[in-house]
C-alpha cells in the first residue's frame, strides 16, 4: 500500500485541481482525419440511410438494378438460397459436416446435365448417405420444400446454385415449367428420395 492510505481521515485533504493547458493540435487533426475516413467509409457502404438497403448491397441502385444483360437474373434465387438453404449448406455453399450437409459449390449433383434430380430433391427432400464429387457424406436428412416454395421460386433457387459465378458454376438454367412438370409427376410421393433411387432417373430429359 502506498503512503497516502497510512493515515486515513486527515482533517484536511486537498481535492484535485485541473490545469488549463490547451488541447494539442494533433488530437484535433487525428479526429478530423478519422472523420474524413469515416465519411468515405460510410459513403461507400452506408446506403445513405435508406432503410431498403441491406448488406451485402451498399446503395439502392445496386439492390434494385436491372437483371444482367446476358443470362438469367440470379438475385431472387440468391435471396431464397440465403434464407432457406444456407442454414445447412452455408452461404458460401461448402456444406456443413456437423449436420451431414454436403457441399453445393462444385457438386457433381448440382452441375449435372439437367435439373431433373435436383428438382426432385428440393420438392420431396433427400435421406441417406450420398456420394458428392467422389466423397462420401453421412446420412443426413434434407426436408421437403414442396409446400414452401412455388415452381417459380424453386426454379430461381436452382438456377442460382447452378449458375453462381462465385462458385464458377455455369450449368443450364432451370425453368418454372420444368419444375411444374416434375411436381405433377411426383405429386403422390410422401417420402424423401434416396440417392440410389435418384440415380435411376436420367438427369436430363
Amino acid at each position, binding site marked *: 500500500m502506498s503512503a497516502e*492510505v497510512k493515515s*486515513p481521515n486527515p482533517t484536511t485533504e486537498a481535492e484535485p485541481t485541473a490545469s488549463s493547458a*490547451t*488541447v494539442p493540435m494533433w488530437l484535433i487533426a487525428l479526429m478530423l482525419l478519422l472523420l474524413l475516413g*469515416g465519411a468515405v467509409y460510410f459513403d461507400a457502404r452506408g446506403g445513405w440511410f435508406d432503410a431498403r438497403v441491406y448488406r451485402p448491397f451498399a446503395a439502392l441502385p445496386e439492390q434494385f438494378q436491372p437483371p444482367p444483360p446476358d443470362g438469367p437474373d440470379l438475385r431472387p434465387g440468391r435471396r431464397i438460397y440465403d434464407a432457406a438453404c444456407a442454414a445447412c449448406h452455408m452461404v458460401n455453399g461448402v456444406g456443413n459436416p456437423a449436420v451431414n450437409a454436403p457441399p453445393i459449390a462444385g457438386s457433381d449433383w448440382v452441375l449435372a446435365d439437367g435439373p431433373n434430380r435436383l428438382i426432385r430433391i428440393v420438392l420431396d427432400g433427400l435421406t441417406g448417405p450420398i456420394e458428392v464429387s467422389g466423397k462420401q457424406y453421412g446420412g443426413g436428412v434434407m426436408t421437403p420444400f414442396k409446400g414452401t416454395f412455388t415452381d417459380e421460386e424453386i426454379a430461381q433457387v436452382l438456377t442460382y446454385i447452378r449458375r453462381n459465378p462465385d462458385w464458377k458454376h455455369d450449368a443450364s438454367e432451370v425453368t418454372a415449367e420444368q419444375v411444374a412438370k416434375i411436381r405433377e409427376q411426383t405429386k403422390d410421393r410422401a417420402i424423401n428420395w434416396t440417392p440410389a433411387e435418384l440415380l435411376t432417373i436420367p438427369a436430363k430429359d
Partner: protein
Amino acid sequence: MTAPAVTNRPAALAADSSTAGIDASCRLPLFMLFGGAAFWLVLGSIFGFIASLKFHKADFLADAAWLTFGRVYPASTNLLVYGFAIPVALGVALWMLARLGRVQLARPWLVTVGAKLWHIGVCVGLIAILAGEATGFEWLEMPRYAAVILLLAYLLIAVWAFSTHHARKERTLYPSQWFVLAALFWFPWIYSTATLLLQFFPVRGVTQAAIAWWYSGNLLFVWLALAGLASSFYFLPKLVGRPLQSSYLALFVFWTLILFGTWVGIPAGATLPAWMPTLSNMAAMMMVVPAAAVVLMVVQTTRGAKTACGGGPLCYMKFGTGALALSVLLLAASGLPFVNRFTDFTWFGTAKLQLWVYGFFAMTLFGAVYYILPRVAGFELPAAKAVRVHFWCGVIGTLLFALPLAIGGVLQGVKLANPDIPFTDVTKATLMFFRLGTMGELLILAGNLLFLFNIGAVLVRYYLAVCRAACADLTAPLPTAEVKP
C-alpha cells in the same frame, strides 16, 4: 460511545464539512453499495467460471436446468454489470460529489435504502434469470419486474446525489463532476427506454435488435466509460499530487466519448438496414479519439511524478488506462471491414469486452474503492497486502483471458472463412486459447475473493465496534444525577 471512529450521530456531524465529516456522512451508504457489489462480483465470477467450464466438459452440471450455460452465462454478465459495476460506480460517484462539493452527503439513510433496494432488484433479477425467465436481450436479461425495482432504486440514489451536488459549497466544477452527472442521467434514460420498448410495449421486428444493441453499446461504452473516467480523473491527480492535465482535454474527452460512444454496439454482420452497422462501425473507429486523449491526459498528469504505486490504487488506475487503450484498439479494428469479416461472431468480441469491463472499468473502480474505504471506515484496510495481490491477480488474469482469446478469435475467423476446414475442427482448434482464458478467469476470481474479503472485513469490524459501543452504553452505570433518591 467509546470509539470515536464509529461516531455516526447526525447531530454531532451536521455542520461538519471537514473531510472527516464528509467521509462519515458517506459511510453507511457506501458500505451498503460496496459490500453488495463485492458479493455480487464474486458470485458473478463463480457463475462465469461454471459457464466457461462447459466449453471444456459439455456435460458439467448439465443435469440441473438452472446451471446450464444459457442461464449461468447471462447470470454472470448481469451480476458483473448490475450487481457490481453500477452500485460500485454509484458509491464512488456519491463520495466524489460530496468531497468535490465540500459538503456532506444529503440524506444518507435514504441513499442506504436505495442501495438496499438496488441489491434486492439484482437478487430478483438473478433468480429470474436462473429460473429461465430471462428476456433474451444481451446485457438486459433481467425481466421487467426486476427492472422496475432497479430503476426505482437508482432514482432514489441519484436524486440524493443531485441534491448533494446542488448544496455544494465549492461552486467551481471539477471535470470528474461532469462525468458523474452525465452518467447519473445516462443510465435511467437508456434503461427506461430499452425496458419500455423491449418489455412493456415491444416494438416490432428488427427494431428490437437495434434497440437492444443501442442499449448495450450505451451501457458499456458510454455509462461505464463515464463512471470509470470520472474516477481516474479524480484519483490520478490526487494520488500523484499534481493538477490534472488538463481541464480542456477532459472536456474534449467528455464530448467525443458521448458523441461517438453512443453509436457503438451494432456488429458489422447485423441484419439491419446497411446504414446502421456501417455508422456503428464508423463510431467504433472514432472511439480512438477519446481513448488517445485519455492516454495523453494520464501520461501528462502522472509523468515525472515521484509517486511509486506499489500495487496500490495508483497502479489500478494506470493499468485501467492501459486496458482502455488496448480495448479501444480492438474495438476500432473490429470496425474495419477487412477485420470484422474474420472477427464477427468469434472469441475476439469477448476478449474486447473483458478488457473493457474488467481491465478498464473494474480495475479503475477497485483502485477507487481501496482508496475510499479506509477513509469512510475510519481505519486501515484489515488486509492491506491483499490489495497488491488482488492487483496482480487482476492484471495477469485479465491479460491471460483477453490476449489468447483475441488471437484465438482471429484464427477462428480465418479458419471459418476457409471452406476446406470443417466447422468442428475450427471449434476444436480454439480450445487451447480457451484453456488459457479459463486460467485467467480463475485468477480474476481469486482477486475478486480478496476484494470481498477486504470489504467484508471492514464491514464486520465496523459493525462489531458499533455493537460493542451499544452494549457499553446499555451496561454503563446510570449517571448519579439521574438516579432519583
